[in-house]
């Protein structure tokens, strides 16, 4: 008996986690997938009724807004964070004496909760007493900056806060990338008298392609899962003008009592994540096996 245990101890140790993953990740995904095919409302039902929940979802104006917002938010958030992150990384890579301190300042928002970030920006952007009031106080009486309460612009306030939170992190990723570029090539280019900007555009940045890819994966993952920031900053409002899929799912699950809609919207979110992540993971794993 003890011999058997000794031989199988590694498996015994892994078993609880294995079962946990099987049940709480895969089993739960299967449950949600199943329920998304039923007529569940306040309580889950288990008879399958085809794709009616998905039909309802795609017909719902609120979901339409949420997906459009995800597209706007995701595109702006990813592109601006990457441009800003790369720019800051290049600037910081010029033998800056106070680099450590500056890096610490650029990156600290990443340690904050999205709820804290949202609370801070909600205060800064509120038209009554925030930036708008402050600039008016300087004598620009007609200055308007009411994005937070403007249905057409509310989604952009989430972009602003999200970039503030994550761009420093992208900077750190790129900085690590810049530091790992082969120094011999750079020296050789300098000896040849190639101007600095050409060294960057022709040698360094192209060699950082993998970093761009991982930054993209991380940021898109963050964008799709964005929930806390929307809740804290706009609450999805005004109306549901700044809803994202995550807030739509939450509203259906916990305040509207529409489990079928919650399940189907969660499945779509997962599909979007996997459309981005699976090809990446696949190529990573293949690269390792080769």
């Amino acid at each position: 008996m003890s011999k058997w245990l000794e031989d199988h101890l590694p498996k015994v140790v892994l078993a609880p986690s294995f079962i946990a993953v099987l049940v709480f990740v895969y089993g739960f995904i299967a449950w949600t997938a199943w329920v998304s095919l039923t007529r569940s409302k306040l309580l889950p039902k288990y008879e399958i009724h085809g794709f009616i929940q998905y039909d309802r979802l795609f017909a719902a104006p609120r979901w339409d807004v949420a997906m459009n917002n995800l597209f706007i938010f995701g595109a702006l958030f990813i592109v601006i964070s990457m441009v800003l992150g790369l720019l800051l990384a290049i600037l910081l890579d010029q033998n800056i004496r106070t680099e450590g301190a500056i890096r610490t300042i650029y990156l600290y928002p990443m340690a904050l909760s999205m709820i804290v970030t949202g609370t801070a920006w909600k205060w800064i952007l509120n038209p009554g007493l925030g930036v708008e009031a402050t600039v008016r106080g300087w004598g620009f009486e007609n200055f308007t900056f009411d994005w937070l309460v403007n249905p057409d612009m509310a989604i952009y306030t989430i972009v602003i806060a999200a970039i503030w939170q994550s761009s420093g992190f992208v900077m750190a990723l790129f900085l690590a990338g810049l530091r790992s570029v082969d120094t011999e090539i750079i020296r050789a280019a300098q000896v040849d008298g190639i101007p600095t900007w050409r060294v960057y555009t022709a040698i360094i940045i192209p060699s950082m392609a993998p970093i761009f890819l991982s930054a993209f994966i991380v940021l898109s993952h963050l964008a799709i899962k964005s929930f806390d920031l929307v809740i804290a900053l706009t609450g999805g409002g005004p109306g549901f003008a700044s809803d994202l899929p995550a807030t739509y799912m939450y509203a259906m699950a916990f305040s509207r009592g529409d489990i079928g809609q919650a399940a189907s919207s969660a499945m779509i979110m997962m599909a979007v994540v996997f459309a981005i992540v699976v090809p990446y993971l696949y190529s990573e794993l293949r690269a390792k096996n080769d």
Partner: protein
Amino acid sequence: MTDVTIHPARSQSRLGKIALRWLLYIILGLFALYYLMPLFVMVTTSLKSLEEIRTGDLISLPRVVTFEAWTTAWSTACTGIQCEGVRPYFWNSVLIAVPAVLISTLVGALNGYVVAQWRFRGSNLFFAAMLFGCFIPFQVVLLPMARLLGIMGIAGTIPGLIFVHVIYGLGFTTLFFRNYYVSIPSELTKAAKVDGAGFFRIFWSIFLPLSLPIIVVTVIWQFTQIWNDFLFGVSFSQAGTQPITVALNNIVNSTTGVKEYNVDMATAIIAALPTLLVYVVAGKYFIRGLTAGSVKG
């Protein structure tokens, strides 16, 4: 970190170089201001009286510094109907985070140890299955988890939240330890086995003493994740067991009475302090976790 910098082309004049250098520092300084501005506004707002907030502007320093908002935030601010400040919720977060971090780190260490050093048929599959779990949007498990917690009788309780955080933290903790232990030569384990040491003995006497850096990285990562969590907190808690992020959101969005912006800001800073402190004290490990969790995950 190597010392590679791109030296501006030689043709530039000395004066131009100095000007460029100044410009560089000014730009970096402006960005530092941009990142610090919200924190500055939060701190100054929390130290102003409501009267001063209404008449003054966003970026002015407080004329009179008052800590009233801080005491209100800590002990009398209202989250919905209750008005006991944020203190009980702060302790809820501590009660959730500490056990969840410890358990998920310990289990992750053992998992990583097996996957890296005691491979068997299927252990790689297990690891791949776990890794996949790091990527799912948690919305996809919210509904069944809510039902399961109800069936287990721990819905809306702190043990329930600990349970959820342990389960969905395991993917990352396993990943961290696995990637760390993979770099330790397997000859070490083999030699110890020949000498008669068992599975736990080898873990305890050889691997654990080598693990301090990765333990720090994992603990910091897990603590930050769990302390800052909102989705699980708001989905699986009830009045009295909410973590601080949920309480903060409730205080800020409570519609009753006068909007006390200074109290909101003080509460937000209280909610942010533990993770900020960790960041300031152990930033290096924090960043390592972030990059390991994102690049490899």
